[in-house]
């Protein structure tokens, strides 16, 4: 039996998988949406069109709930490597530790230093300064994604290091940072965040149009969003294909698991080129009990030739093979979602070409709107599936081909592992259900109670009788007090 599937190791994997899966629910929206809010803010400042401002302030409410959930679950992540994977953390410290240090200093804190200004700074800082704050939130969260992907990609393709004295010591920083997997893996993840945020925009807009609330306003948003998606969704498919071919070269076991590809050659000695639509791997993990197979497709996908050789599981000893079930199916779900979202983008722009992308015509044919509302949830599932494919496909290694997962697990009792798991099930589900409940509340409330942007800087005239002593000796107005901007309905 593969050691990684024995109870203590499996539980420690579950401990980490759970907190990571529940954290990746939040970060993509922060990363993608902060740029979209930046674009909305620029649009407002350049055109003076109040509608962009309203939309910005509305989606900002969703962003800050999302951000709170991201921070709540993210602080744990920064500590969890040492807690759950102590020996791993010690061994990878010279590279991976450095990179996580870079992330906290140049990204996590950078973001925290500007998110307050972005959300609560309206009217307290100048418009230019506010735009600068929004820009910094966008840049810092993207930087964060970059560093985390550097660290994770390096676990997939650990380049630029040598194992000495029990530590992975860096021999070439450039190769370690821009490792094989990172080159495609980071763009794939970053574009996923943009695609998710765009679909959240589209989904919420479609819901409002469907409900005939502020339908014209949200149609105005839906148009450029769908146009952007027409570019983003196919680019993401292309990036995904590139990641796949990279994995085929650098992590053949992972690719074989993703495709349920056990036999490199067919019994008659020819290259096995078949791609499985559905497969049931057997219990010994050395073949499929049942599969629906299309010849040549696998070779086409991975080598871009009809009969190219794709290495199968049979080329590796049983103890080095990952499980197939999760990578195989989660990979297929992710791909299906990727193509479905591309189709939705095509559909929307085709409607626009025919002049039907206006609130009235859209409501006459509500199936498009329903499909878009539904599409807002799919990127979440796709991102989950992608990461499960990636992480389970790498097993039984924590650092591919160099450190087995069981070698990196902390010295914990089963009780501790269960304690962690149960505790985090409670807390992560509280975060998740709370955030989604309040998303729905904010959306249900709508945009109507967002005051005009004129009120942002006029509060100085309305009051002026605040002469209290100021903490820090500086001049400050209790702007919260008189600013309708930030009233209870925030």
């Amino acid at each position: 039996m593969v050691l990684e599937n024995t109870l203590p190791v499996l539980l420690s994997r579950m401990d980490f998988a759970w907190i990571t899966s529940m954290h990746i629910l939040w970060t993509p929206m922060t990363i993608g949406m902060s740029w979209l809010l930046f674009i909305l803010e620029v649009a407002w400042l350049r055109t003076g069109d109040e509608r962009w401002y309203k939309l910005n302030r509305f989606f900002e409410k969703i962003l800050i709930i999302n951000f709170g959930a991201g921070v709540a679950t993210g602080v744990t992540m920064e500590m969890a490597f040492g807690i759950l994977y102590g020996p791993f953390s010690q061994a990878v410290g010279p590279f991976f530790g450095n990179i996580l240090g870079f992330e906290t200093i140049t990204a996590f804190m950078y973001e925290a230093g500007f998110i307050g200004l972005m959300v609560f700074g309206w009217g307290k800082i100048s418009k230019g300064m506010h735009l600068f704050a929004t820009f910094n939130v966008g840049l810092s969260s993207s930087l964060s994604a970059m560093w985390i992907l550097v660290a994770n990609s390096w676990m997939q393709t650990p380049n630029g290091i040598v194992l000495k004295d029990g530590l992975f010591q860096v021999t070439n920083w450039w190769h370690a940072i821009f490792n094989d997997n990172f080159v495609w893996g980071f763009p794939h993840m970053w574009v996923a965040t943009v695609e998710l945020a765009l679909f959240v925009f589209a989904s919420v807009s479609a819901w409002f149009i469907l409900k005939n609330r502020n339908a014209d306003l949200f149609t105005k948003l839906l148009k450029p969003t769908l146009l952007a998606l027409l570019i983003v969704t196919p680019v993401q498919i292309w990036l995904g294909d590139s990641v796949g071919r990279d994995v085929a070269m650098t992590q053949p076991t992972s690719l074989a698991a993703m495709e349920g590809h056990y036999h490199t050659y067919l019994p008659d000695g020819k290259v096995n080129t078949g791609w499985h639509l559905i497969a049931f791997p057997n219990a010994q993990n050395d073949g499929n009990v049942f599969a629906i197979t299309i010849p040549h497709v696998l070779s086409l996908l991975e080598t871009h030739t009809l009969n190219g050789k794709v290495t199968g599981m049979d080329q590796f000893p049983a103890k080095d093979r990952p499980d197939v079930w999760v990578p195989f199916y989660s990979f297929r779900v992710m791909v299906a979602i990727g193509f479905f979202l591309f189709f939705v983008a095509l559909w929307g722009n085709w409607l626009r070409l025919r002049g039907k992308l206006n609130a009235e015509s859209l409501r006459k044919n509500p199936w498009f709107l329903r499909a878009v509302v539904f599409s807002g949830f799919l990127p979440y599932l796709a991102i989950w599936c992608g990461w499960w494919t990636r992480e389970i496909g790498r097993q039984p290694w924590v650092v591919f081909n160099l450190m087995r997962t069981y070698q990196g697990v902390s010295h914990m009792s089963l009780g501790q592992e269960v304690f962690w798991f149960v505790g985090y099930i409670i807390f992560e589900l509280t975060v998740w259900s709370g955030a989604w409940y309040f998303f729905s509340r904010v959306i249900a409330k709508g945009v109507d109670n967002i005051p005009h942007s004129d009120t942002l800087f006029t509060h100085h005239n309305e009051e002026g009788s605040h002469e209290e002593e100021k903490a820090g000796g500086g001049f400050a107005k209790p702007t919260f007090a008189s600013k309708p901007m930030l009233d209870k309905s925030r």
Partner: protein
Amino acid sequence: MFFQDVSRIVGALSTWWWLILCLMFLLYIALDGADLGAGIFALFSPDEEERGAIMASMAGFWDGNETWLVVAGGILFGAFPSVYGSAFNYLLIPLAFALWGIISRAIAFEFHVHAIGSKRFWGWMFAFGSVLAPFGAGVALGGALQGFPMAHHIAAEGVAGAHANAFDAVPHYAGGPFTFLSPFSIWTGFGAVIAASLAGGLYLCARFVPGDVIHERAKKWTNAFSMIALAAIVITLVWSYAIFPWAAAKWTGANWWVWLIWILVILGFAYMSMTAHAASRDFVALLWGEGVVALMWFAMWATMFPYIVPHTWGIQEASNPADSLAVFTLFMTGFVPIMILYNWYQIWVFRGRYTKKAMYAGH
């Protein structure tokens, strides 16, 4: 000759990161300590309006304050991964509680404003989280002061069929789940809650307009916790002297007079804070109070020198190899003042005194 130079460089750089680590932890306890303390105060708030006002008072910067802990963790991982990977393993249980407290607070901040029916629930999540976080962190700190057992060949223990491997060259944590637990570590948990409570009282006094209900109660709260905190400091010092030979040896060694002067300065700071507080110069009182925290923190780190974890990890043996440390120093040191600058700016933007009503209604 060459290797001697390299080891001197490593020694200098690792000490440099030890100092920055000390500063980051200090920023966390000084800044978030006040926020956490205000949350503990909110545990005794009569209504949701007050809890909401307290949360609103730090809405613009709580996240930045809390993130100093993450930065400290990141520096620990980046410069001293051996400590990160063994001490956190050792402190799994107290850290889990602290992290759960942090989670509760973080979401309560964003949810409380939107809630209608569940306002009470999120108010309590905020207050309880604010107690749990410093308690867990305090227990973890006490546990770290006690040191912990380490061994080679421990990584694969407990996994049947596992065998010795290259990674055993590094010593790993070798104790049990409750090794951290002792009367002293439980006490430091309470000590952290007391210290946070005092800082929170000083912060609320400085944040709310004199005469406001919150200010009035925070004033009494601060008076009470000043006394409790002074008692707690004495208890902690005497207890540490009794059970930590490394501390006792330093305090009563050849340089005993340095420590004596240090204590007198701390008492002076505490006195200044209390008189400023009595005279309603609340922001000044807060600064003197934070000064006490800083001086105590520096004294603790100086007592532990040259160890990061007493008699477990020395600064040099725990640090990354020279190459990693050099890269970390080159690329990250410059960001430290930048981080402090923009955090200061963010706090400065949201400065000023408020009333409970204005703060709550304005949020």
